[in-house]
């Protein structure tokens, strides 16, 4: 039997996990914000690392966002910088897959992306909130053009495979009807005097007035089929408001309250109202890796690719790192520097001998990495736009694929398109992870066809990244428990002798690129201060 948990003893982490598992990271972040965990970026503009002692060398491990930001800033400050990167490319999880790209996951399954030119999927981060000032500032300084990312699309779907005969429901219907029904119920309670203890007569009147607007209620405070509710939730057909002698509009019928409540679809509506997911959000034009690539272009000669770190050692004079060619193996190589900034994910670093203090070592070994899976599926035509008028945004479903994301680029241009064919968390992410890429893609197409029947005829090719199979991260992000963070986070963020760590794992914005950027800037600023002070 499963142990039964006292609901009153639930910890914040349990709650976050519960929410995260059930509704994806989006809702987890929403809850984190509510619980005072996620917050606005601390970015305060470009850092000033003036007065770097001549000839001081810093070795950076990892060329993801944290490593690239550090290389970019430290080199400009005058340090002698070298970067070792495991992959045959820079960017880390800030990554875009395009036609011709190849990816071999752990287990040896190799995928070749067969997307048409101009089409792509971001298997890692895919959106930048307006308050991630560091990411936005680097995009601006490096002249990487951004475009809007619309998290919310009222014409996308909310889908419960067990309700409404499995037919996906338009977001706008669920949104309007849920608000309408709760406004009607609350009005009833007010009009029956059931809230008299809570409200003055004046406030009751003010509340009723606002509920009528908020829920689109009629003069008797009822939510019914009408011109007004059709203007809110839409007409039965989008073309019904024609001109001339075209047919008169047909009002649409709201979903019954009991069916709506039973479906639970209103629970999905929280996502675009989360602090991290509200408008305006952005994506780099052409793929998320554009920002990382712009940083890389600036520091490329300093970066050695295909370098697999096998040991990190230090003494009172400097740091010595052993590495091998990640593809060909062979002789061990050595890199030595005065200081080291290590951005290797803790899932990897915990398996590498590293000479740091016991508290930092314990911290390195204490962060579980979350499972997540993302699909990119190419279709012969953009049926979601042509047939269903869904331009960008996300549909949510209780199927194991959990989400379908529509491309924000190339809208209404016709031709082929690539959908985010699934963005999976929780138990289903582990189950997808246990499959071969071919099996995952077959399943994602089979499941997605329950929402878009066009899948069957229009699917062309796909790629999938299951983050626990990623050779360079062995997981998606460091999902610190409250207890582990409390115990280890400060130790993790120290400068331990001549070694310091950075990355999303060393931030309070886990999983976000902004966390990696801020962690990098904070750490190199402290390291710089220490270097200047001891020079």
């Amino acid at each position, binding site marked *: 039997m499963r142990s039964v948990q006292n609901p009153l003893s639930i910890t914040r982490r349990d709650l976050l996990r*519960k929410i995260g598992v*059930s509704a994806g990271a989006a809702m987890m972040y929403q809850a984190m914000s509510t619980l005072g965990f996620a917050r606005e970026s601390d970015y305060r503009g470009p850092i000033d690392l003036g007065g770097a002692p001549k000839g001081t060398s810093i070795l950076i491990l990892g060329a993801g966002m944290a490593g690239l930001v550090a290389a970019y800033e430290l080199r400009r400050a005058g340090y002698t910088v070298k970067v070792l990167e495991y992959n045959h490319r820079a960017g880390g999880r800030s990554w875009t897959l395009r036609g011709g790209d190849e990816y071999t996951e*752990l287990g040896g399954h190799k995928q070749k992306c067969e997307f048409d030119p101009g089409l792509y999927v971001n298997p890692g981060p895919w959106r930048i909130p307006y308050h991630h000032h560091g990411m936005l500032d680097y995009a601006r300084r490096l002249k990487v053009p951004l475009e809007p990312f619309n998290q919310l699309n009222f014409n996308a779907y909310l889908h419960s495979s067990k309700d409404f005969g499995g037919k996906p429901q338009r977001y706008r219907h669920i949104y309007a009807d849920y608000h309408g029904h709760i406004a009607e119920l609350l009005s009833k309670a007010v009009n029956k005097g059931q809230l008299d203890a809570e409200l003055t007569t004046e406030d009751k009147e003010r509340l009723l007035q606002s509920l009528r607007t908020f829920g689109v209620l009629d003069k008797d405070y009822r939510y019914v089929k009408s011109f007004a509710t059709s203007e809110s939730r839409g007409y039965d057909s989008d073309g019904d408001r024609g001109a001339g002698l075209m047919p008169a509009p047909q009002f649409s019928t709201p979903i019954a309250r009991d069916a709506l409540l039973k479906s639970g679809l209103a629970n999905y509506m929280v996502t675009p109202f989360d602090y991290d997911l509200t408008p305006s959000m952005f994506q780099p034009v052409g793929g998320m890796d554009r920002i990382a690539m712009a940083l890389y272009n600036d520091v490329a000669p300093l970066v050695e690719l295909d370098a697999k770190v096998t040991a990190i050692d230090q003494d009172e004079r400097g740091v010595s790192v052993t590495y091998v060619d990640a593809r060909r193996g062979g002789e061990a190589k050595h890199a030595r520097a005065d200081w080291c900034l290590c951005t290797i994910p803790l899932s990897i670093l915990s398996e590498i001998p590293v000479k740091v203090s016991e508290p930092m070592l314990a911290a390195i070994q204490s962060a579980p990495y979350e499972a997540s899976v993302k699909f990119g599926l190419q279709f012969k035509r953009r049926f979601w736009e042509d047939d269903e008028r869904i331009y960008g945004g996300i549909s949510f479903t209780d199927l194991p694929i959990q989400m379908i994301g529509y491309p924000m680029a190339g809208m209404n241009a016709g031709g082929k398109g690539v959908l985010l064919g699934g963005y999976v968390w929780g*138990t289903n992410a*582990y189950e997808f992870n*246990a*499959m071969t890429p071919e099996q995952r893609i077959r399943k994602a197409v089979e499941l997605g066809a329950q929402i878009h029947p066009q899948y069957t005829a229009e699917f062309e090719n796909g790629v999938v990244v299951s983050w626990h199979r990623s050779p360079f991260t*062995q997981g998606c992000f460091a999902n610190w428990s409250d207890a582990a963070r409390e115990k280890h986070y400060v130790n993790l963020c120290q400068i331990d002798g001549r070694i310091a760590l950075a990355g999303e794992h060393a931030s309070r914005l886990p999983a976000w690129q902004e966390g990696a950027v801020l962690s990098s800037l904070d750490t190199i600023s402290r390291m710089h201060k220490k270097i200047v002070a001891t020079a």
Partner: protein
Amino acid sequence: MATPVPLSHSLRLCRNLLCLLALASFAPAAMSADDEPPPFSPPGSFTDLGHFAHQDGATLFRAICQGCHMADAKGAVGAGYYPALAGDQKLASATYPALVVLKGRHGMPPFGDYLTDAQVAEVVNYVRSHFGNQYPDALTQAEVARLR
């Protein structure tokens, strides 16, 4: 300490046995390690955790563990590595793998909230009696409960 038998031998035995059973009883087709994994668990809801639906050790291994430790339980190597569970002397005491499954270890997430005590016992017993591991003692569900 049990002596690990060669992996290929134990796998072959295991497959033959399953095939015979399937033929004899007309049970649903037995799956080998490289067959498609079992169907998905139902998604969690706002009021309950996501839980793995499968109950027997072999199916749980194929639905979860093989994703990282691989179908042959030999692990995988990239920038870091996933350890092999095949012929693994660290499995000599059932408590160790049970604790790792429940609480996680290093980057491996804890599975205590996703699995019942019975499921943890099932999957630990499966791994300790396959892939060249031949530990005769079985972990009980009550023992798992005490480790939580």
